[in-house]
């Protein structure tokens, strides 16, 4: 059948620079480049290119560049190239569109419409290079009251807390969706930085049990790899109710991907499909959720905080209020831009709400109800920079989850083809030759670099606001002003417009 789709990208090889070394041929798992008939001449098939830049970056003479194809449909404002291509794909296959990474569509990014305050004249700013600045946070439930022995000595009634050196954690990415080396990079970086990474739904590989105190173990609807040893192996247990990229739907890892180690950590036979049902079928209400929370607490003897992760959806405030009363210690909210290894395109691009609005309204609702201290709030769903983190904290978050940014630190070029399993950067793949391209020494180092830099920037931004502790910034919306936002948006965010 004729493929109606013209390639999206074009590979331009400069024949004057190309030395026919064959690096591009060997490096591309999508088999774009090819030596013709054992000659030195290399040709390429643009239609296979996903624009991951592996060949362009590794070409020793910089002979390759990849450009967006100049060839275009007769598109208009309503029928753009992407929409037309999608129709061709479905007309050809009859399949549901499947995509990788977060929502790429042109919805407002509220972080980009919020500006930070700075001290001028009336209050001094602080120089973080000279003065101590505190970025440590503790996640968990705060006690209701202070308890004392009859002699006045304090009784430690503090529920379990997660200490973090900075308000950042690596969000859930399962072993299976990303590679062994990617997981090792995350685990090592988390240990070095004094933060946490998250196993996702794929279970915990035995090699990583040594990073236990920097690990969040996840319990999702499929309960893959979940047993009592696993629950006690980490610092906290996360119940995954939903994910920003695909709220309300389950997951399906095909049997072909359940091989070797993946099968062992998920504790399912090789070749069997790993299906995560859309809901947890033991949770149909907040009361049921409470039951799962407490069964996990009993199984871990109240030593581990329990996180409930939900996607940001329309009734997020009421849901969060329920979770805050369910006994959970931490609520993690994933905005509609959250990343994913694979999600149906239509769901990723059309379901959920922006994290900024969800966060602001949840924080307000919990404060209004007097239950904010019942839980810490962690937000994710496209945290792209230290500025996003500072703004999120000022909107009421205790901490953020980063996923896509962490992957990019490890080398991800955002080609958004994670679901294909042929990641040329060794991240979203299980092919051994590709996995070894990501060296965990380098991967973890780059993650440490990124977060160390962000931490410096957070301190700078706190310093210029005259704040020396991240706790003081939390929910401090006076430090925020909106630009180009309407009254309703400002009201939901709980901030004033710039100039007010």
């Amino acid at each position: 059948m004729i493929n109606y789709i013209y390639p999206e990208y074009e590979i331009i090889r400069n024949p004057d620079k190309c030395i026919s070394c064959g690096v591009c041929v060997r490096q591309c798992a999508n088999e774009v480049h090819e030596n013709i008939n054992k000659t030195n001449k290399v040709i390429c098939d643009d239609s296979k290119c996903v624009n991951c830049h592996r060949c362009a970056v590794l070409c020793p003479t910089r002979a390759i560049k990849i450009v967006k194809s100049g060839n275009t449909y007769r598109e208009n404002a309503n029928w753009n190239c992407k929409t037309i291509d999608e129709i061709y794909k479905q007309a050809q296959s009859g399949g549901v569109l499947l995509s990788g990474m977060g929502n790429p569509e042109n919805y407002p990014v509220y972080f980009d419409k919020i500006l930070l305050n700075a001290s001028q004249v009336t209050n001094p700013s602080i120089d973080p290079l000279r003065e101590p600045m505190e970025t440590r946070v503790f996640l968990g439930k705060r006690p209701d009251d202070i308890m004392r022995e009859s002699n006045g000595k304090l009784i430690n009634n503090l529920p379990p807390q997660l200490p973090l050196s900075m308000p950042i954690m690596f969000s859930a990415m399962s072993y299976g969706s990303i590679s062994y080396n990617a997981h090792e990079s995350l685990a090592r970086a988390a240990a070095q930085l004094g933060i946490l990474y998250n196993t996702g739904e794929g279970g915990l590989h035995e090699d990583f049990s040594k990073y236990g105190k920097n690990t969040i173990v996840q319990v999702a609807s499929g309960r893959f790899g979940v047993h009592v040893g696993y629950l006690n192996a980490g610092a906290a247990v996360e119940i995954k109710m939903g994910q920003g990229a695909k709220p309300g739907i389950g997951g399906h890892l095909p049997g072909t991907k359940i091989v070797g180690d993946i099968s062992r950590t998920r504790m399912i036979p090789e070749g069997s499909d790993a299906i995560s049902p859309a809901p947890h079928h033991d949770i149909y209400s907040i009361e049921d959720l409470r039951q799962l929370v407490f069964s996990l607490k009993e199984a871990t003897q109240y030593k581990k905080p329990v996180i409930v992760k939900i996607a940001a959806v329309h009734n997020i405030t009421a849901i969060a209020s329920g979770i805050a009363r369910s006994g959970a210690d931490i609520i993690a909210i994933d905005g509609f831009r959250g990343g994913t290894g694979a999600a149906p395109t239509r769901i990723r691009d059309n379901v959920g709400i922006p994290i900024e609005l969800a966060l602001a309204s949840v924080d307000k609702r919990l404060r209004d109800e007097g239950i904010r201290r019942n839980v810490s709030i962690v937000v994710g769903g496209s945290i792209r920079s230290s500025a996003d983190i500072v703004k999120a904290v000022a909107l009421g978050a205790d901490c953020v989850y980063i996923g896509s940014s962490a992957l990019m630190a490890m080398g991800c070029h955002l080609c958004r083809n994670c679901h294909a399993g042929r990641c040329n950067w060794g991240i979203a793949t299980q092919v051994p030759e590709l996995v070894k391209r990501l060296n965990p020494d380098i991967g973890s180092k780059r993650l440490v670099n990124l977060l160390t830099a962000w931490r410096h920037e957070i301190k700078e931004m706190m310093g210029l606001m005259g704040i020396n502790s991240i706790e003081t910034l939390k929910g401090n919306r006076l430090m925020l002003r909106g630009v180009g936002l309407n009254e309703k948006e400002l009201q939901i965010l709980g901030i004033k417009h710039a100039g007010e």
Partner: protein
Amino acid sequence: MKVKSYKWGRHTFKVHLCRKGTSENMKAKGLDFKQLNEQIRACVRVGNKNIKIDDCCGQRFICSGFSAETPTQITINGTPGNALGAYLDGGCTITVNGNAQDAVGDTMNDGKIIIHGNAGDALGYSMRGGSIFVKGDAGYRAGVHAKEYKDKKPVIVIGGKVGSFLGEYLAGGLLIALGSVGGFTGTGMHGGKIYIRTSEPPKNLSAQVIATIAENLDEIRPYIVEFAKHFGANAQEILKAQFYVLKPNAKNPYKQLYVMN
């Protein structure tokens, strides 16, 4: 079991003093689930192998996450609450002389639960190993997403009626229903087997499931024998009846057709 209580300010704390021995009797009456579970844990810690709980009245999460190094019998007289034996691991056998409530054996990995009565909804949700025997009926969603791995193979035997959605998303293991089943049995199943004692194939099956008359019952025989032993039934009598077996339909698997975008 002795409970020593003392005051700290306005708060009263209880410390459970468990005698070291091979058996321990305790009264659940008036205890909340945290206290009761802490008591049971204290007994298992000192190596008691036979623990009896009287007057159980809805306390939840009993034996949640339990595993014992040596075989330990836990007998519950009364009605344990939801999530009995959740995440149960090896070494523990729980016997309930009464009815159990919802989510018995949730995500259970090993061990055994024997219920001399009825069980509630979501029995054995997502269990990976071990076995559950119910003398009477079970509610909706029994054995949803049970799965097997290597030597672990979960088994649920239900003597009476079962509600709808038995074995939904079943990925592995054996579910055996000796009484009638509700609708939508095995929807989305992609592994495992469901045996139903019936002369008629169950109604409302989805296209992902095929039901055939079981030609032989060798696979379920040991579990039926064990069921009969626990509840004083006649195994031969049960095995004489006709069983239907439900398996995933290889021609119409549970999956979505995707196209890379």
